[in-house]
C-alpha cells in the first residue's frame, strides 16, 4: 500500500471514530467513552497527516504542536467550571483562526475558481469565528462590558461591512494574484465578527456560543474544500450541524427567532412599565429555615447568579441535609439558564449532584403543583411569570419554569435590581413568594448551619 492510500484509509477510520464518538456523547453513561473515541480518531488523523509526502521539514510542525498542545492542556486543567463558557468561546476562536490561516495558506497561483471560492469562505467564516469568539470571551469573562452595544447607524455600518466583504470576495476571485483584495477580505471578516457580536447582550450568549461553535465547524469544512481534504469536510460539517441544532434549541427556549437574537437587543423592545400588584415580602434566612424544615418536596431552580456566587457546592450540601430530613429534592433546569447550553448541569455535576436529579423544564413543570418549596438561586427571567401572564412583556411567550405553582417560593437574590433583560419580575410580588436578600452563597451557608444544629 502506498502512502497516499494509508493516509486516505486513516482519514476514513478517523471519520468513523468521530461519528461513533458523537453518537456515544448522546447519553450520560457513555459520554466520556465517546469523547475518548473521538480523541483517538483525532490522533489517527494527525498521525497519518504527518506521513504526507509533501512534508520535508518537521521542525515547524513540532514547534506548533508542542506550543499549542501545552497551552491547551494547561488551560483545560486550570479552568474553573464556572468559567467554562468563556473557555469554550476562546477555544472556538482559535479553531476559527486556524481555518482562516489554512485557507489563506492554501492559496496558490494556479488555484481554480472553485478552490478560490472555498478559500474565501474559509477565510470569511474563520475570521468571523475568531473575532466573534474573542468578543464573546470578553463579554463572558467581563473583560468587556456584558451589555449590548448599540449605536445609531449600526445597521448601516453593518450593511456596508457586508457589502464590502462580498465585493472584496468577488474581486479577489477575479484577481487572485493581487493580494490587496485578500487582505481586504480578511480585514473585513475580522471586523464583521466584532460587529456581529457587540450588539448581543450577556443573556443571549447561549445562542451566540452555539452559533459560533457551528461556524468553527463550517470554517473547517470550507478549509477542507480549499485543500481538498475529506476528513476536514466530514468533521467540520458534523460540528456545524451540532452547533446549528443547539442554536435552534436555545432560540426556541427563549421564544425568539435567530434573527431577533442577532439583530435586536431586548432594550429596543420594551420601555413600558407594567403595573404589578402586591408587595415584596423579605424574610430572614432563619425564617427560611423553618419553611424548608417543614417541606417534603423541594425544587431548586438555579440561574447564572449561582455561577457568579460559586454557590453550587453549598447548594449540594443543603440538598443532602434536606434529603436527610426526609424531603425529596429536585433541580429544575431551564435550557437557557446560565451563559451556555447546559451550563448549570456542568456546575451541579462538579458539585456531585447526580444527573438524574436534574430535571428539564418540561419534566419539572407538571410536578410543580406538588412542590412545597421552590428555591430560586440567582435565576430571574427563566422563572418570570410575565412570560405567561403579561402580554405586553418582551418575554411574553417564552417557556418558563412555573415556580409560582409551588406552595411557597423562596427567591435568593442580591437586591431588587431587575434581571439581565431588565424586565420587571411579578414573581417577586406574588402572595406565596418570600425574598431572601443577600449573597446566595452566604444565605445557603446560613441555612446549612441551621440544618446542622
Amino acid at each position, binding site marked *: 500500500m502506498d502512502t497516499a492510500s494509508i493516509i486516505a484509509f486513516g482519514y476514513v477510520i478517523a471519520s468513523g471514530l468521530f461519528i461513533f464518538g458523537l453518537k456515544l456523547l448522546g447519553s450520560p453513561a457513555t459520554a466520556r467513552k465517546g469523547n475518548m473515541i473521538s480523541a483517538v480518531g483525532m490522533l489517527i488523523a494527525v498521525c497519518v497527516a504527518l506521513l504526507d509526502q509533501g512534508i520535508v521539514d518537521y521542525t515547524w510542525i513540532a514547534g506548533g*504542536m508542542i506550543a499549542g498542545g501545552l497551552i491547551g492542556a494547561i488551560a483545560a486543567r486550570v479552568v474553573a467550571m464556572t468559567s467554562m463558557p468563556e473557555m469554550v468561546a476562546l*477555544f472556538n476562536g482559535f479553531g476559527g483562526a*486556524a481555518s482562516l*490561516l489554512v485557507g489563506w495558506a492554501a492559496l496558490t497561483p494556479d488555484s481554480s475558481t472553485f478552490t478560490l471560492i472555498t478559500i474565501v469562505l474559509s477565510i470569511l467564516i474563520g475570521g468571523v469565528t475568531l473575532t466573534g469568539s474573542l468578543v464573546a470571551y470578553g463579554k463572558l469573562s467581563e473583560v468587556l462590558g456584558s451589555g449590548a452595544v448599540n449605536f445609531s447607524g449600526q445597521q448601516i455600518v453593518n450593511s456596508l461591512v457586508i457589502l464590502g466583504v462580498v465585493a472584496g470576495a468577488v474581486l479577489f476571485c477575479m484577481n487572485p494574484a493581487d493580494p490587496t483584495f485578500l487582505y481586504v477580505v480578511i480585514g473585513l471578516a475580522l471586523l464583521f465578527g466584532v460587529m456581529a457580536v457587540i450588539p448581543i447582550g450577556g443573556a443571549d450568549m447561549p445562542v451566540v456560543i452555539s452559533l459560533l461553535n457551528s461556524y468553527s465547524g463550517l470554517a*473547517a469544512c470550507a478549509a477542507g474544500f480549499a485543500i481538498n481534504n475529506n476528513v476536514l469536510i466530514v468533521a467540520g460539517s458534523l460540528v456545524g450541524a451540532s452547533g446549528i441544532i443547539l442554536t435552534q434549541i436555545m432560540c426556541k427556549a427563549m421564544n425568539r427567532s435567530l434573527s431577533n437574537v442577532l439583530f435586536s437587543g431586548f432594550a429596543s423592545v420594551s420601555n413600558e412599565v407594567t403595573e404589578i400588584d402586591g408587595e415584596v415580602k423579605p424574610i430572614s434566612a432563619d425564617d427560611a429555615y423553618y419553611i424548608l424544615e417543614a417541606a417534603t418536596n423541594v425544587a431548586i431552580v438555579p440561574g447564572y447568579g449561582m455561577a457568579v456566587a460559586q454557590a453550587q457546592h453549598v447548594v449540594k450540601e443543603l440538598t443532602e441535609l434536606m434529603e436527610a430530613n426526609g424531603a425529596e429534592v429536585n433541580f429544575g433546569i431551564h435550557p437557557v439558564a446560565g451563559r451556555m447550553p447546559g451550563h448549570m448541569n456542568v456546575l451541579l455535576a462538579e458539585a456531585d449532584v447526580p444527573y438524574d436529579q436534574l430535571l428539564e423544564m418540561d419534566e419539572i413543570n407538571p410536578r410543580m403543583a406538588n412542590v412545597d418549596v421552590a428555591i430560586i438561586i440567582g435565576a430571574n427571567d427563566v422563572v418570570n411569570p410575565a412570560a405567561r401572564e403579561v402580554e405586553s412583556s418582551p418575554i411574553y411567550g417564552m417557556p418558563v419554569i412555573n415556580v409560582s405553582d409551588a406552595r411557597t417560593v423562596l427567591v435568593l437574590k442580591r437586591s431588587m435590581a431587575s434581571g439581565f433583560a431588565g424586565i420587571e419580575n411579578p414573581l417577586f410580588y406574588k402572595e406565596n413568594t418570600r425574598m431572601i436578600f443577600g449573597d446566595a452563597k452566604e444565605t445557603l451557608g446560613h441555612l446549612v448551619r441551621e440544618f446542622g444544629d
Partner: protein
Amino acid sequence: MNGAEFLLFILMLSVFLGFELINKVPATLHTPLMSGANAISGITVVGAVALAGAGDPTTSKILGAAAVGLAMINVVGGYMVTDRMLGFFKKKEG
C-alpha cells in the same frame, strides 16, 4: 465524478448525519457536547501540518505553522476539558 462534486457529496451526507446524531442529545450534556464538538473542529490541524512542513520558509509555511499551534490548542484543550467535565457526571447511587 470529479473532485469538487465528490466533496460536495460527502458534505451533504455528513450534514444529515450530524443532524441525526445531535438531535437526540439530552440537555444535561449540552456543554460537554459543545466542547467535544469544538475539539473536533480543530481537525484543521490535519490540513495545517502539510502546509507547515513545506521545505522553504514561505508565507504559506509560516501561516501553516501558526495554524498548527492554534488548532492544537483547540484540539488538546477541547478534548481534555470535555473529559474533565464528563468525569463529574454521576448517576445517583442505589
